[in-house]
């Protein structure tokens, strides 16, 4: 990019005639343009910057120098409750560590991924960064993250889920406060009114959802919006528990799971309007008593508990047969240290160590219903937060979305999401929809050389 801009800068004056004041001015002007263009290039998403990558040097290093007091840049999208919880942690860190100031930049959650990718391409990442766990392969694969074991953070004290969420190719790059997953939330009053028992199997789910669908109440809702994420995140528990495989989505397991959706939709127990609903939309339906059962995660404890008249219970995701354990997707954000200069990496590490300390992790996980990353903290928590038990048992079997398919996941997610919508709307049978999706899955796997 740099070269093209400069060459263009010279081309015009040459055609313009003999060297004069005007030409000199023109050259000066174009030189400025060249700089501007380069600046533009390096701030655009996905631009292959021609600037030398700052990484290289860090990859072989095993220890970091002691951090020098200064400004630590931090970027996150913990916006719930106006981000006040994070703000409190930062204040505590600053009072414990005089001389250090944390400069926090809050990203809008919806744009966080593209913002992170933009910054990564321009090598403008902060000292400590929060990411959703499926993005770890993207940045780790490009060599932009510091392997945490090389700076003394050991995965041994972490829960299996925490390790899976923060790892790429068996190397730990990120640690978060904790993990979450999804379960079945049910409205106790509505179930009691229809004399319906909490479903544990798919057959029970269909019967219960049918019985609960009346008086404008939907028996069961899942998010199925085509915004990347929503539909597939909520479909994966059914897909994986039935034996579905993200590399072969049209296998028997995938077809069985989608047949469940088809059955629910056909019975009218799963309203077709869910193809336009994201996860927070179905949470709103549940709070308003318009949906009797939904698939949801612990982050809604706060809003649900403060909803007047809402008496809800939580159960594991129903399984094809009784006695099985549901395999759910692993959720949760992680902190990563982007590669930069040793001094900056040391600053990031200092803040990271504070944030994943047992005291901070405990207070975060307790407030947000997450399963704390550290084993000792999570077992201490479970004794006090009974609502979390369902999720704690589910998380033992939870699977990382990018574990099997890595970088091909975004494309697979799009294809699978379309299949889910097609079946809910009755546009295709489960087999047809998944056969179509498989074409895209194969293409995506081929592109990233993932052998299946």
């Amino acid at each position: 990019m740099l070269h093209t801009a400069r060459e263009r800068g010279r081309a015009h004056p040459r055609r313009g005639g003999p060297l004069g004041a005007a030409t000199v001015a023109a050259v000066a002007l174009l030189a400025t343009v060249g700089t501007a263009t380069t600046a533009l290039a390096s701030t655009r998403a996905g631009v292959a910057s021609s600037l030398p990558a700052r990484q290289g040097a860090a990859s072989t290093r095993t220890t970091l120098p002691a951090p020098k007091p200064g400004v630590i840049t931090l970027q996150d999208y913990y916006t719930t409750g106006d981000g006040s919880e994070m703000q409190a942690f930062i204040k505590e860190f600053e009072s414990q560590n005089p001389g250090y100031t944390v400069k926090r930049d809050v990203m809008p959650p919806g744009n966080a991924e593209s913002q992170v990718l933009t910054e990564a391409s321009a090598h403008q990442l902060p000292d400590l960064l929060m990411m959703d766990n499926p993005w770890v392969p993207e940045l780790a694969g490009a060599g932009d993250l510091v392997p945490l074991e090389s700076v003394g953070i050991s995965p041994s004290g972490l829960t299996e889920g925490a390790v899976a969420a923060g790892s790429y190719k068996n190397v730990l790059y990120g640690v978060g406060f904790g993990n979450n997953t999804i379960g079945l939330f049910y409205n106790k009053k509505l179930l009691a009114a229809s004399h319906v028992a909490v479903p544990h199997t798919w057959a029970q789910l269909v019967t219960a959802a049918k019985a609960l669908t009346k008086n404008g109440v939907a028996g069961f809702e899942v998010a199925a919006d085509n915004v990347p994420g929503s539909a597939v995140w909520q479909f994966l528990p059914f897909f994986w528990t039935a034996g579905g495989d993200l590399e072969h989505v049209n296998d028997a397991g995938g077809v069985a799971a989608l047949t469940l959706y088809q059955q629910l939709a056909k019975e009218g127990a799963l309203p077709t309007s869910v193809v336009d609903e994201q996860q927070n939309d179905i949470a709103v339906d549940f709070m308003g008593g318009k949906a009797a059962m939904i698939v949801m995660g612990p982050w809604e404890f706060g809003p649900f508990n403060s909803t007047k008249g809402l008496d809800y219970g939580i159960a594991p995701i129903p399984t094809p047969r009784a006695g099985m354990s549901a395999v759910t997707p692993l959720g949760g954000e992680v902190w990563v240290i982007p590669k930069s200069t040793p001094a900056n990496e040391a600053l990031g590490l200092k803040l990271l160590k504070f944030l994943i300390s047992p005291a901070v992790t405990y207070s975060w996980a307790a407030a947000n219903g997450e399963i704390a990353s550290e084993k000792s903290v999570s077992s201490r928590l479970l004794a006090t937060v009974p609502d979390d038990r369902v999720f704690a048992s589910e998380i033992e079997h939870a699977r990382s979305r990018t574990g099997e398919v890595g970088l091909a996941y975004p494309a697979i997610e799009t294809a699978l999401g379309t299949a889910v919508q097609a079946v809910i709307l009755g546009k295709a049978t489960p087999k047809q929809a998944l056969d179509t999706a498989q074409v895209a899955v194969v293409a995506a796997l081929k592109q990233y050389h993932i052998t299946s």
Partner: protein
Amino acid sequence: MWRETAGRAERIGGVPSATAGLPNRVATRRAAARRPDDQADATRERRHRLWQRGVAGGRRWLFLMPAIVYVCLLFAYPIVYNVLLSLRQSSVIGLLNNSAGFVGLSNYHTAITNPVLPTVVENTALFVVGSIVFQFGIGFLLALFFSQRFPLSGLLRSLILVPWLLPGVVTGLVLRLMFDPTSGMVNQILSDVGLIHTPIEWLTNTHLALLTVVLANIWIGIPFNMLLLHGGLQDIPKELYEAARVDGAGRARTFWSVTVPVMRPVIAVVLVLGFIYTLKAFDIVIILTGGGPVNSTQLLSTWAYTLSFGNLDFGQGAAIGTIMMLISLVCALAYVRSYRGELRR
């Protein structure tokens, strides 16, 4: 010498460029007629003239510079960048560590053989044709209506412009609320009037979603069509209509034989711009349906976005973007050609 020349340049610099533009051979002929000892002087003069032209040329470039800078920065650079991107294996990692290799036309091949493409092309064609026919038709009727002077016509005409003034995102969000099946205003009104008994799923029905999106886009595009056509109608000399009336032409005849032929260049501009605007329509669709459900409203523009930012496959997204650009380019070139033909006539 240098200074002297510069001094003269300054002196003559006050004369407008007509002097600088004097044909060179005039100077040469004059020089030939002069005595030999004047020869050196003549050469100097010629050199001076050349220098002057150079300065004028440089100045011309200087004045052009803002436009060139603007075009390069905001048009040429993104276009070239997009084309380059479409020729590379531009996945996330490749872009982040600059290892994205050139893969020739492979991204185009993958995009063209994608099983979703036929649906996308069909949707785009329906969207463009459906939008333009009604935007143009209704816009023309309104333009004719407003070319009649009547009380409050100016106010009404400005009110009709509102859809064009609102940002697409705002329009999209408002329309999304209006088309909501259970709480939306559209279904409410239709059922109050007694036209429907069950709510219509405007945005979640795969057969209706495209229609809804087209309706929204027609609504947005009417003011633009009306405005340009209204301007064209104002420029038609009144004498032509008078002459037609004297010749005994009726209303329809006057329209087809006077209005339409005179308006032809305006109509061409409106249609070409309408085509390009409609082809690249994005904000309204992404907000109303996001290209769904099941790709039923997926257009080339939204698909390019999904490939780039949903699948993080920037190479394929760029390939679709380049194809769209070529379609627009062909259309614009066809227009320029026909416009030149019009001028020659």
